[in-house]
């Protein structure tokens, strides 16, 4: 019934899986071909809907991992054991399979390019996904906005897009905070994001950075409070909270 949709009205559309790429033990990136896709902005998300043979439907939201300029739409999915949707997406999907998508969604947690202010991003776990889309967008448009990403992960093995982040474009600094375990010779941050780390990496409020925080509730809450306490205008502190998307 896609043809009956009103123009401009968000509705479900079909996408075909081009490739499934492993990222970490728990995460995979779905590379999709979505013929009716109208484009998106970095930071937006999609709803994915699965329909069982008996008509039962389940849907979940996933951040878009690709830049608007990328050839394909990409979603990075974290597999939650015993979940209803994510194990299917991560384990069962094969190239050629079809999915139902609704999107792009959200006009608030988006970054469209330089506003003359630096870009300061905090990602917790798979909360890095929409921030990766912003970095790819920045690179694809040769935007020279200084950008810093603080990425909190349990261990080095849990870091998604590690290689890509290590060879980030000029003007991008990536700071990994490992919260549970780290290599003996780890010179990066150990433990949760704290004020000492923010002193090192966060631009002062007077530089009016655009701040994006995405991750689990506790992570987002802790950092957004700290940033507001450091004098950043709450309007410039954009947050997206999620938990395990089962």
């Amino acid at each position, binding site marked *: 019934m896609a043809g009956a949709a009103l123009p401009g009205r*968000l509705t479900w559309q079909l996408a075909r899986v081009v490739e499934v790429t492993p990222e970490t033990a728990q995460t995979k990136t779905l590379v999709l071909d979505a013929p009716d896709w109208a484009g998106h902005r970095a930071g937006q*998300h999609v*709803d994915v809907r699965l329909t069982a043979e008996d008509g039962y439907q389940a849907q979940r*939201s996933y951040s878009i991992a690709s830049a608007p300029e990328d050839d394909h739409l990409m979603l990075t999915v974290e597999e939650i054991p015993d979940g209803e949707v994510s194990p299917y997406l991560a384990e069962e999907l094969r190239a050629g399979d079809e999915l139902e998508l609704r999107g792009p969604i*959200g*006009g*608030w*947690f988006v970054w469209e390019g330089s506003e003359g202010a630096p870009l300061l991003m905090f990602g917790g776990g798979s909360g890095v996904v929409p921030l990766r889309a912003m970095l790819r967008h920045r690179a694809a448009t040769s935007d020279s906005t200084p950008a810093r990403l603080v990425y909190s992960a349990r261990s080095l093995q849990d870091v998604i897009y590690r290689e890509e982040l290590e060879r980030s474009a000029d003007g991008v600094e990536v700071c990994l905070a490992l919260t549970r375990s780290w290599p003996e010779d780890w010179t990066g941050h150990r433990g949760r994001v704290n004020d000492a780390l923010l002193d090192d990496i966060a631009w002062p409020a007077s530089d009016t950075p655009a701040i994006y925080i995405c991750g689990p509730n506790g992570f987002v809450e802790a950092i957004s409070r700290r940033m507001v306490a450091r004098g950043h205008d709450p309007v410039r502190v954009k947050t997206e909270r*999620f938990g*395990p998307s089962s």
Partner: protein
Amino acid sequence: MEDFTVDGNALAGALAQSLGRDVTGERGTCGHCGKASLVAELVVYPKAPSPVARCPHCGDVVMVVTEISDTITVHMDTYAM
């Protein structure tokens, strides 16, 4: 997992399909406590029988969204946008 919450961004797809526009950056006023919040900031319990959004200030229910196949109903009598 019972108390697992996300935020209003998770309702944005159903709201956009139902209302015809993205509302994540719009503000509404809670009918209980009178405080304003962005839709993106609402506290959403995604796993109730249907997703329920609560005011981030007072915790009262401001929105219930049901989505069955392609029929979406948005109850937001207590959230004035």
